[in-house]
């Protein structure tokens, strides 16, 4: 399963790779990273069929996570649509509402609870 993580913090990449090192080692999950919404769109243009799940930060300079979400829902709406989970440091209602309105499948808050995330992935894979 290929997962695209979109976050402007570069250190998110070693964090994910560390947290999911077992899954990666066993080739259950494969991660790709983008540092901005724009980068994510470029990536998706070529590999949208491979990507099953997109994890995106909301709070990013330039294209925000919400923008990216609506673009994804608009551009890649052929079934099966990719699962998009939004992550934000501010777990407030406004961000949550916007994310759901724009078609996010789930909503996570920072700091990420990786165990919770893993559970969600398991249900997703199942």
């Amino acid at each position, binding site marked *: 399963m290929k997962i695209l993580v979109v976050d402007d913090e570069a*250190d998110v990449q070693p964090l994910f790779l560390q947290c999911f090192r077992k899954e990666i080692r066993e080739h259950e999950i494969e991660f790709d990273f983008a540092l901005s919404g724009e980068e994510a769109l470029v990536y998706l243009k070529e590999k949208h069929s491979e990507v099953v799940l997109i994890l995106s930060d909301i709070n990013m300079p*330039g294209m925000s996570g919400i923008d990216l979400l609506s673009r994804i829902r608009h551009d890649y709406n052929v079934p099966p649509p990719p699962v998009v989970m939004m992550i934000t440091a*501010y777990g407030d209602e406004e961000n949550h509402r916007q994310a759901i309105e724009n078609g996010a499948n789930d909503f996570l808050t920072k700091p990420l609870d990786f165990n919770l995330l893993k559970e969600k992935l398991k249900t997703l894979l199942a």
Partner: protein
Amino acid sequence: MKLNLFQLLCALFITVSFTARAQLKPVAYDAMPEDGITLDTGWRYSLEDKSQFAQPAFNDASWGSINPTKPLYNLPQLKGDKIGWLRLRFKTGTKLGSRPYIYSMWHSAATEVYLDGKLLSKYGKLSNNPAEVVPIGMNLPDQEIYLTQGDEHVLAIRFALWRGPVVRSNWINFCFITLSSTNQFLEVSKAIHKGNHVYIVLTSVFFLLSLLHLAFYRYDPTQRANLFFAVYAISSTVGFFCVIMQEEVQDVRIWMFVYLPAFLTTLMGGIWIIKALGNLFSLRIKWLEIVLWCIYAIVLVLIIFWQVDTPFFIGLIIFGLIEIGLTIKALRMKKRGAGIVAFGFAVSVTAVAPFLVGITIGNLTHQILILIEFLAPALGISLYLAREFALDSSLLREKLVQVETLSEQNLAQEQEKQQLLARQNDSLESQVAERTTALQKSLIDLRSAQTQLIQSEKMASLGELTAGIAHEIQNPLNFVNNFSDVNREMIDELKEELKAGNIDEALVIANDIQQNEEKIIQHGKRADNIVKGMLQHSRSNTGERQLSNINTLADEFLKLSYHGLRAKDKTFNAGLSTSFEEGLPPINIVSQDIGRVLLNLFNNAFYAVNQKKKVANADYKPEVSVTTSRGDGCVVVTVRDNGIGIPNEIKDKIMQPFFTTKPSGEGTGLGLSLSYDIVVKGHGGNIEILSQNGVYTQFVVTLPI
């Protein structure tokens, strides 16, 4: 006959005929004419000079006949300049009886008169040299002679001719002798005296009029009629004075200089009075004046070379008619006061009428009429002028009263105004004092308010930062937490691998742990920095300068600003691009102050793009870029946004305190003003603004190294 104007006037209308009565010698007189007996016939003359000619017995039968009453130029037989003789034999008849006679004589020569061989009188100086002849012949004393009726008397006159100037006129007789009764003499004397009185009166009156109107003219040169009238009066005065002098002067040489001017000045007066009338009634008489002077010149020539009476009176009548004509014209034009002048002329004409129609009137009446004739028009015009003067002056007086009233009012108003001004001045001064006090108080208030404002501006920007700071701290904390979690798990794994004896695997895990720890430390420091920065920023005292890295500062505050705005407005977003030149030298700055400047610039940039996004179409991508670079002896920080830009009209104002384009309550208006103070005054740097309205704004901050 005395030669005065009155008699000349009479002479115009009464034809005096010198009837040549061919009588036998001696000439007999048996009646006394009204004017006395004029000895104009029976005369004999000789151009020789012998003493026996005086003797009554001398026979002059061979001598030529002559009428010596004629002017000299009419007596061509008296040629040469030698002393000569005249002789007349006459007798008086029974009607006249034996009686005394008054012997009167005037002549233009020097004479010795013998009656019946005895010297009767001697006047002047006789000489065969004409240059030595002194012609005393005018206004000679009259003498009484006694003539016995029926006796023959012989009048012998020895004469020396005086030719005088080349004058061909009738106004100097050669020798004019009359015999009159004592009664007649008395009457004539009285008439002469009265006549003299008339002319003395006229002279005096006209002299006064001259002075009066000269004075009028002197005090009001605009009224030229007064000048003309004064000239007329002077001219007439001279004329009348000359007439008086005619009765006094005995020397013919002088006499002719009082006789002729009497006419000429009187006539000239007529021209000036016409000028005066023209001026008074505003009539155009330029051509008329020229004609008058021509007439005058003609009359002058005629008087000198022909005779006095006719040309003079014709001239006088012409002028008189013109004067009357002008007056009538003025009357028709209803000129003010023309009636007075007209009345004067009317009276004058009335006075002259008896002469014109030839009514015989007494001497006294004559003189009075003459007086009236000359005085009436002059007084009419004089009265008119005086009236004008009086009217003008009363008008002036009225005006003066008005002016005085007005100036009094003016003065009163002026005083009132001054008082008002003074009062206002006082109240103004006290108001100014009050205001000054109030202003000083306000100034003090303002200063404290300013201090407070600066502080509150700091707090406001701090407030804006809060959310950003929270986010910025949250992120590293997340990493710290997450990496710590991961490390805990990995340490468990490490232990398991060690227990299992997989050293290689254990080392790999330990490396990972070590890397994670570094991440933890790194993000912990990051949070630490943020907190320190925040503390620095909120400190109100002016910080000390320290060497700082501008890139770090710019990056830190850019993020703070961005996330602060994001935290407040979830929909807000903008592209950030940073281009920090590597290896910039640290600069000596008060970093929290410069931080505030940068924060302000970033906040403004984000605000600008956000504002534009609200109105721009969907293609608009908000972009904020921050660039640092090295300049000549300085470091340059450029903050550029593609927001709404700054309109030209407010470019000059944006650095002013309290100037803000943000809605009320959103901005203090102090951000850029304080930034300017910090950069320019605090650090000796510069802030430059480049902007195109609706396209971009670029702030270039230059800080010296």
